[in-house]
């Protein structure tokens, strides 16, 4: 992709205006920018450039940075700002320019968001940390490499129906369009049990969405808005090795939790969002019609199924193997392609997930995607998940059709 950040965001705003013709730049009362790494952009405070070049001088703005959950956290900040009663119309704009450096340098940049005094110096990068967690999770839950690969196949193949996705565009068009488990199993070792196709893409990309009061939405975006019925944000240790016995978790969820296998911050933020939306945990699977979740790795998608109470240790294998999260399953996950499909331009990612979920709940998907293959008809409730670090900051949102 070849656009500077201010042009990416400008394009996204123009597309939002196509969807909501009543929305004008002059409506924006506050801007929340979502951008992770100033390293990639060789630019501190890059949001100042974007804001200025959108013509928004005078409009208050700040930037949220919260690792891979930067997008989700920016949404959360905008949600709080509307809830506070201070603002009615807030723009949330995110981007990342990770192709400014080589892949291996980029991997090391991202590893700077681990505790650089320890893991990163020892050669650790994020796929390695996730692999160490996934390896233990796989063993303890009776899963196999092939079980993880299912999520990779599903999301990449969904992405082929989404022309905005990185997997569909540019250099990736030369790759096979209908991946199989075997393709994943044969792809290059990243860190056991993860192979290349189990990992998301390193990306350049941008995203934008509007967070408004319901009154504004009713008046100016009738039929084109969703309601945020639940929002949760939670935190965990930066180093996965520090959560074997962390008192903050053991007093909440019992001894031995989350260990290095479970995403406690996903469970907690999910429970908070469910509580706010009136969803009972054991009925979550039935209550949600579609979800966009943070599949930075195929294994983490599976770990998230469990953290969100969609399955448990006893039935996780069947849950995965019965393809419950495929199109046509009872809870399609990442019909937009997920991070493995549309890419993971960190600051944009959580916002893209929210936008994909919004498309489903407003029936825009058939228009936005290449076909209706990835459209979840009659979806009323959606879940959006954004995830950072080794599970260090995680947000979950429940969207509902009004």
């Amino acid at each position, binding site marked *: 992709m*070849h656009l500077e950040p201010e042009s990416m965001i400008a394009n996204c705003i123009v597309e939002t205006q196509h969807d909501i013709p009543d929305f004008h730049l002059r409506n924006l009362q506050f801007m929340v920018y979502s951008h992770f790494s100033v390293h990639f952009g*060789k630019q501190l405070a890059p949001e100042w450039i974007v804001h200025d070049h959108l013509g928004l001088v005078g409009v208050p703005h700040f930037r949220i940075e919260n690792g891979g959950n930067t997008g989700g956290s920016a949404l959360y900040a905008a949600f709080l700002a509307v809830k506070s009663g201070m603002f009615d119309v807030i723009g949330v704009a995110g981007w990342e320019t990770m192709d400014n450096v*080589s892949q*291996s*340098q980029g*991997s*090391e940049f991202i*590893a700077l968001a681990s*505790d650089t*005094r*320890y*893991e*990163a*110096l*020892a*050669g*650790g*990068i994020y*796929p*390695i*940390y996730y*692999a*160490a*967690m*996934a*390896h*233990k999770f796989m*063993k303890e839950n009776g899963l196999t*490499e092939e079980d993880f690969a299912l999520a990779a196949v599903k999301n990449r193949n969904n992405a082929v129906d989404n022309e905005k996705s990185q997997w569909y565009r540019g250099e990736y068009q030369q790759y096979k369009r209908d991946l199989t488990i075997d393709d994943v199993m044969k792809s*290059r*070792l*990243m*860190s*056991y*049990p993860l*192979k290349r196709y189990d990992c998301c893409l390193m990306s350049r990309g941008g995203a934008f969405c509007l967070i408004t009061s319901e009154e504004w939405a009713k008046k100016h975006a009738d039929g084109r808005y969703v309601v945020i019925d639940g929002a949760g944000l939670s935190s965990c240790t930066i*180093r*996965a*090795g*520090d959560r*074997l*016995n*962390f*008192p*903050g978790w053991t007093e909440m969820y019992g001894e031995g939790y989350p260990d*290095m296998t479970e995403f406690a911050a996903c469970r907690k933020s999910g429970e908070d969002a469910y509580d706010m939306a009136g969803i009972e945990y054991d009925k979550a699977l039935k209550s949600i019609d579609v979800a966009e979740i943070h599949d930075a790795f195929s294994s983490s998608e599976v770990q998230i199924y469990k953290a969100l109470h969609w399955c448990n240790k006893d039935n996780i294998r069947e849950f995965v193997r019965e393809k419950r999260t495929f199109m046509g399953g009872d809870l399609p996950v990442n019909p937009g392609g997920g991070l493995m499909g549309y890419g993971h331009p960190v600051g944009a990612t959580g916002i893209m997930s929210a936008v994909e979920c919004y498309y489903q709940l407003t029936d825009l998907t058939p228009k936005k995607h290449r076909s209706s293959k990835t459209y979840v008809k009659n979806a009323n409730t959606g879940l959006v998940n954004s995830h950072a670090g080794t599970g260090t900051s995680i947000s979950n949102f429940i969207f509902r059709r009004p």
Partner: protein
Amino acid sequence: MSKKTQKTPEKKPAPRPEPAPKKAVDPRMHPIPLKVEYDDKHTNDFRGDVKEVGFHFAGYEWSSKEQQLLIDLHYDQLYYWKLAELSKMGRGFLDGELWGTQCPRCGDKFFPPRVNCWRLDEELQRTDWVRLEPQGHVHTFTIAGWSGKSSLKRLPFVLAYVVVDGCKTAIANELRGVKPWDPEFKMPVKVVWAPKEERRGVITDFHFEPADGWKPGPMNPEKERIKELCAPVYEWVKTLK
């Protein structure tokens, strides 16, 4: 009459201020040295005298078809990484000693060190330094086939999370002295130090190796699978300059 000789009306001298009562220092506060002089310098030991050049233009590329410009820009930065109150740990690495911390109240022991207790009810109780036995067991591990720029040439390697000497936490470091497909969960390991002249005061001054007497189990389908995944990684590393 000069001002000097001008008589001032007699005035009771102001009482000398009481010496400020010595403030009790909250023992949970971390002491801050007023001044630090680093008198034992090893700044050129590893890469020579690194020269910072800041912005350095390395070239450009032009697409005549799409009218797009790409500039090759190099930017470097030398960091002065102060270990400050964690210096005990870094000094330990240089000396081949493993130092962690322990809360004097709850007894929880940490490596890597936490400078305050992690229990909220301990209200930031400062921990004490404790020397750790250089041994532990593998909590989980992975076999890396890809890494950051600095580590590509040593692929594939095993990164293991090890619980050292009864700590409540696990530390990640390389596990050597074993084929990548042979490590096992819970296997006992020992700390092995780099030669003294190669130590830098950082975590990579040591690595883990299987404890004396540990033998890997026989080959099995999973080990064969990992071996097969590693084969192209070995070949790829040979092609690196």
